[in-house]
């Protein structure tokens, strides 16, 4: 009984969000069933469409895993957006500024740059949270805006491409481009890296000591401290890992899809990833399904806008509703996730 209630509660936000979307569509005189079935076929109808969906899901896998690691340990880190943006900038920078003939090493260096910058970016708030108990919600939130300001300042100034109009870095060298998996679509090998990270995350949750301690700190920080877990270390490590994965996601996005860094690099991948981590209650399988779902919404939403005049903003309405309802409790069930 509890299990079925729990499953119902997990899917409730998604069900209601489609219902709200349907109301919006009915209000403007469109048939929601027609639009939704069109979206379904635009999201999964053919190999090409599935590739587009997986491509849109790729950055979300990274940001969702990055968020989930912190939420598990009770650290309310909402700074993934900033780590993603700066990681993307770092990856693109190494991609266009250094020439290495070996493609493998070039990509490796670019991704490492993203990982380092992303991890470094969240070091300050993690240190402040662990040592001085500074509210990480506010610091990570503010750091997002600082990250965007830094990135925008750099691409409009020192890193601006010669001859390009505005707001973009030069193209990365060909040796730094991630392999396209199904050529006409933008699906790139970054997707495989994302799946690899997701599997590692799943393994880390259920089979590693760190994963166990990470969850314990999330469930009860004081108790964990009392039984001898180094909570400071767990909090800092979780946030560094989270930033590193966010940065890796950003650099994959730069190397795989855009092949450069542009202003407005992330249309809110960090926030969507947060929504996915929440509705999946930090489970690896849930993150996979959620990323595909939101990836399909994004890719189908774009084509729907082209073919049937339904504004892409419908996707925001759906996503916003999911986030509004993601953490509600309708039934009083004991929940094991830290952020509630």
């Amino acid at each position, binding site marked *: 009984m509890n299990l079925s209630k729990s499953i119902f509660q997990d899917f409730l936000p998604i069900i209601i969000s489609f219902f709200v979307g349907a109301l919006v569509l009915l209000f403007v005189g469109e048939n929601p069933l027609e639009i939704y079935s069109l979206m379904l076929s635009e999201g999964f109808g053919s190999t090409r469409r599935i590739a587009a969906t997986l491509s849109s899901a790729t950055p979300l896998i990274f940001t969702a895993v990055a968020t989930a690691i912190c939420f598990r340990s009770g650290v309310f880190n909402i700074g993934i957006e900033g780590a993603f943006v700066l990681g993307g900038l770092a990856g693109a920078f190494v991609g266009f500024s250094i020439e290495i003939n070996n493609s493998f090493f070039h990509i490796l260096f670019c991704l490492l740059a993203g990982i380092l910058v992303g991890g470094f970016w969240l070091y300050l708030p993690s240190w402040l949270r662990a040592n001085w108990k500074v509210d990480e919600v506010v610091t990570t939130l*503010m750091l997002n805006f600082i990250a965007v300001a830094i990135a925008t300042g750099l691409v409009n100034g020192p890193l601006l491409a010669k001859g390009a109009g505005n707001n973009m870095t030069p193209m990365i060298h060909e040796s730094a481009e991630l392999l396209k998996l199904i050529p006409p679509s933008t699906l790139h090998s970054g997707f495989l890296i994302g799946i690899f990270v997701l599997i590692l995350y799943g393994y880390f949750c259920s089979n590693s000591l760190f994963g166990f301690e990470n969850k314990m700190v999330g469930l009860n920080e004081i108790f964990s401290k009392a039984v001898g877990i180094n909570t400071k270390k767990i909090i800092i490590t979780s946030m560094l890992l989270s930033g590193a994965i966010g940065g890796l996601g950003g650099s994959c996005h730069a190397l795989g899809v855009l092949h450069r860094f542009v202003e407005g690099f992330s249309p809110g991948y960090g926030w969507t990833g947060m929504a996915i981590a929440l509705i999946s209650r930090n489970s690896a399988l849930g993150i996979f399904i959620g990323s595909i779902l939101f990836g399909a919404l994004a890719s189908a939403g774009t084509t729907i806008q082209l073919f049937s005049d339904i504004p892409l903003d419908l996707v*925001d309405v759906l996503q916003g509703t999911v*986030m*509004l309802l993601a953490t509600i409790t309708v039934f009083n069930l004991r929940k094991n996730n830290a952020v509630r």
Partner: protein
Amino acid sequence: MQFVENILASGVLLTTPILLAAIGGLINRLGGIVNIGLEGKMLLGAIIAIIVSANTNSWLLGLLAAGFASSLAGFFFSVLITRLNANMIIVGFGLNIFIAGLVGFYLKWFHGSSGTLKIENTVLLPKVSLPFIHDLPLIGTLFSNKDPLTWISWIIAFSMPWIIFKTRLGMRIRCAGSDENVARSIGLNVNNLRDFSSSIAGFFAGLAGAHLSIGMLGLFSMGLISGRGFIALAAFYFGRNMPIRTSLVCLIFGILDSMQIRLQGLGLPSEPVQAIPWITVIGILSFMGWSEQRKSQELK
């Protein structure tokens, strides 16, 4: 001198939306809810104000409609938190995305516009110039020729200490925010008080948005708010929930805002100035954390 005077004059105007949103957010914060959704409510207020003002030919109705719509959004936001135990930060973000989605949908579907809306007959807020002060140098530019909402926002800001520390309602809201259990034990309805404080926050955020659309620009655009809701959040964190201090922080942020617009106009990089509010808040929170830490160590 003229240059500085211009920056200050437009800085005062640019303070108004931040100040209004910060007052609302502050009341909400005192009631125990951190309002991340100010940004979305400002966006809602901005578009409602311009539509109503154009259709009724009245800026006052535009303002009231904006305030009412956003306070409704605030109430809805609050109910999810107080009655359904949702996480306030997530709900706030959700509300921002939800409102941006709805407004964007509306603009594209009904106006065929991808981001801006300008309606003929929009009645803007009038400018009130003060008879004697107007001609004085500096003081004239600072205080005269401002819209009524700017005046109202400062009057409310300066009566805030009295409202929250001396009136029954203000004390009850603070009680609900500082200790839920104590508030319950003395018979207060914490949930109702929180919902009320969120509705008030929504109302002020709506006015703040309206000030941007029908007070300053005379048009609506999706990028109109551009993080001012979060700047307001930064302001009351910086002001440590004290109303007067928060208002002065808002004034500083407003002047910074006008400086960065000037810099952009001159083709200079404005990002360092844009980042100042965010950096100062991290600085002040770190300082507070550090001094708390030191105090607790001294006690040991």
